[in-house]
C-alpha cells in the first residue's frame, strides 16, 4: 500500500461538519428573508424609538392615586386567588392523569388516551383556553381558574409521567415480589421515588400560574389583566406602569420563594 493510499484510508482528523454548516447558512438566509417579509425596517425602528420616548414620558411618574391603587389591589388579589385554586386543583388532578400517562404503569390503551388528552391541554395558550371558558361559564375568575387548571394539567401531568417513567423498575419489582397489590406498590415503591420531583413541579407550576393569572383578565378571565388592559386602551400609561411594577415585583418574589422551596425538596 502506497503512502498516499494509506492516507486516503484514514478518516480526516477534523471532518468538516457539513450538516452543521448548512444549518447555520440556512438559518442566516432565513433570517434575512423573514425580516424582509415582515417589513421590519430600520426606519420603522427609528420612528419607534422616537415614539418610545413619548411613551415613556407618559408612563412616568407611575400613578399612585388611592382609588387606582384600590382597584389594582383588588385585581391583584383576585389574580393570586386564581393562581392558588388553579394550582391546587390542577396539581391534584395531574397526579392520576400523570400516572395514567406513564407507560411503565398504565396499560397502553390508557397511557395513550391520557397522552392524547395531555397533548390537547398543552397545545393552547392559557389565554386562548380562557376565551373558551369565558364563553362557557361567563366572565369572571371562574373562567380564568378553569383555564389555568387545564394548562396546569397539561404541564404537570406530562412532566410527572416522564418522572414516573424514569423511576427505577428494580425497586418496583422487589415490592411486587412480596405479593403487594397494585395500590400498595404505588404507595410504597412508586411514590417514594417520584414524590420529591412532583412537589418540585407543583411549586414550579404555582410560579407559572401566578404569571398567567395576571394575563387571563385580558379576555375576561378575571384578575389584574382586565384593569391593565383597560388602562392600556385608554392610554392611561401611568396606571399601566404602576400595575406592571406590582406584577413584576410579585413575580420576582414568587420566583425567589419557589426556588428556595424547590431546593429544600431536592
Amino acid at each position, binding site marked *: 500500500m502506497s503512502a498516499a493510499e494509506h492516507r486516503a484510508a484514514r478518516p480526516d482528523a477534523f471532518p468538516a461538519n457539513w450538516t452543521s454548516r448548512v444549518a447555520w447558512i440556512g438559518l442566516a438566509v432565513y433570517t434575512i428573508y423573514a425580516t424582509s417579509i415582515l417589513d*421590519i425596517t430600520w426606519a420603522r425602528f427609528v420612528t419607534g424609538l422616537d415614539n418610545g420616548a413619548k411613551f415613556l414620558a407618559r408612563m412616568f411618574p407611575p400613578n399612585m392615586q388611592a382609588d387606582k391603587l384600590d382597584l389594582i389591589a383588588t385585581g391583584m388579589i383576585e389574580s393570586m386567588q386564581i393562581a392558588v*385554586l388553579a394550582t391546587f386543583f390542577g396539581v391534584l388532578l395531574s397526579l392520576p392523569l400523570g400516572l395514567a400517562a406513564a407507560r411503565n404503569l398504565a396499560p397502553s390503551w390508557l397511557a395513550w388516551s391520557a397522552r392524547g388528552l395531555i397533548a390537547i391541554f398543552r397545545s393552547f395558550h392559557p389565554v386562548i383556553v380562557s376565551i373558551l371558558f369565558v364563553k362557557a361559564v*361567563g366572565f369572571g*375568575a371562574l373562567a380564568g381558574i378553569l383555564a389555568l387548571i387545564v394548562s396546569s394539567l397539561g404541564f404537570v401531568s406530562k412532566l410527572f409521567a416522564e418522572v414516573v417513567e424514569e423511576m427505577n423498575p428494580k425497586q418496583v419489582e422487589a415490592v411486587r415480589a412480596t405479593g403487594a397489590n397494585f395500590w400498595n406498590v404505588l404507595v410504597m415503591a412508586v411514590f417514594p421515588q417520584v414524590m420529591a420531583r412532583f412537589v418540585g413541579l407543583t411549586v414550579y407550576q404555582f410560579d407559572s400560574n401566578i404569571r398567567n393569572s*395576571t394575563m387571563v383578565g385580558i379576555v375576561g378571565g378575571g384578575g389584574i389583566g382586565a384593569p391593565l388592559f383597560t388602562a392600556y386602551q385608554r392610554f392611561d400609561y401611568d396606571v399601566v406602569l404602576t400595575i*406592571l411594577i406590582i406584577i*413584576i415585583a410579585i413575580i420576582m418574589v414568587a420566583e425567589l420563594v419557589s426556588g428556595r422551596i424547590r431546593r429544600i425538596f431536592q
Partner: protein
Amino acid sequence: MTDAAARAPRVWTRFSPTERIARSMLYILTAAAVVWSMKAVDIIPEFLYDAPEQTADLFRRMWPFDWSFYPKAVHDALIETFHIATLGTIMAIVLALPLSFLAARNFTSNPILNFIAQFIFVSSRSVNSLIWALLFVAIFGPGALSGVLSIAFRSIGFVGKLFGEALEEAQPGPIEALTAAGAPRSMILVKGYWPQVEPAFWSVALLRWDINIRESAVLGLVGAGGIGVALDAALNNLYWDQVGLILGVIFAVVIVTEVVTSTIRSRII
C-alpha cells in the same frame, strides 16, 4: 433476640415531632389558602346552570369550520405567526448568548458582570410575552415587528438562564488544558466550551422555539401580529366557525412543531 423480646415493644413513627408539626402547618396553610381563594369565585348560578348548554352551543357554532376563511385570512396570518416565533427565537439567542457567557461564573469571574447579566435575565422572564407585546405595540405600533420583539425579549431570560447554567456545568478539564497550552480566550471559547455545551444550546433553542410557536399565537390579541389578530377579529364578530377553524389550525401547528422538535432533538442530542 431474647434480649429484644424482653424489651417493651418499640414504636416507630415516620416523622419526628418537629417534622410532624412542620407538615401539619403546611397542610393547614394550604387549606387556608384554598379556602381564602374560594372567595374569588363568585358563582352566578344562572351562568353555571347555563354552562353545559353554553358549551354545547359553543361547539355547535364552531362546527363545521368555515373553511373558506382559511385562504382569506388565516393562511397568511399563520405564516406570519411562524416567522414571528422563529425570528423572535433567533433574535433572543443572538442577544442572550453573549449575556450567558457574562452570567457564567466559570467564564466571567467579575461578580458585577455576573449580576448584571442575571438581572437582565430575571427582568426578561418576569414580564409575560403579552405584556412585552403591549409595550412594543405602544412604541412601534401594531404588527409583526412588535411581535418579534416581544417574543425575543421574553425569551432572552429563558435562553440565557438555561444556557448559562449549561456553561457553568462544563467540565473544567479541557478548558484548563487549553489555558495551559496558552490558547487565546477566543480559542478557549470555541474549542473548550462550545463542543461541551453545543447539545445543551440546541436543546434550549428548540425548547424555546416550541414554546414561542404557542406564545406567538396569542400576541395578536393585543395587536402584535400573527394568527391572534385573525382570532381577535373572529371573536369580536362572534364568528365561532372561524374561531373554531383558527383553533384547529393552531392545534395542528403545535402538534407538527412538537413532532419536528422531538425529531431534531433525538437526531442531534
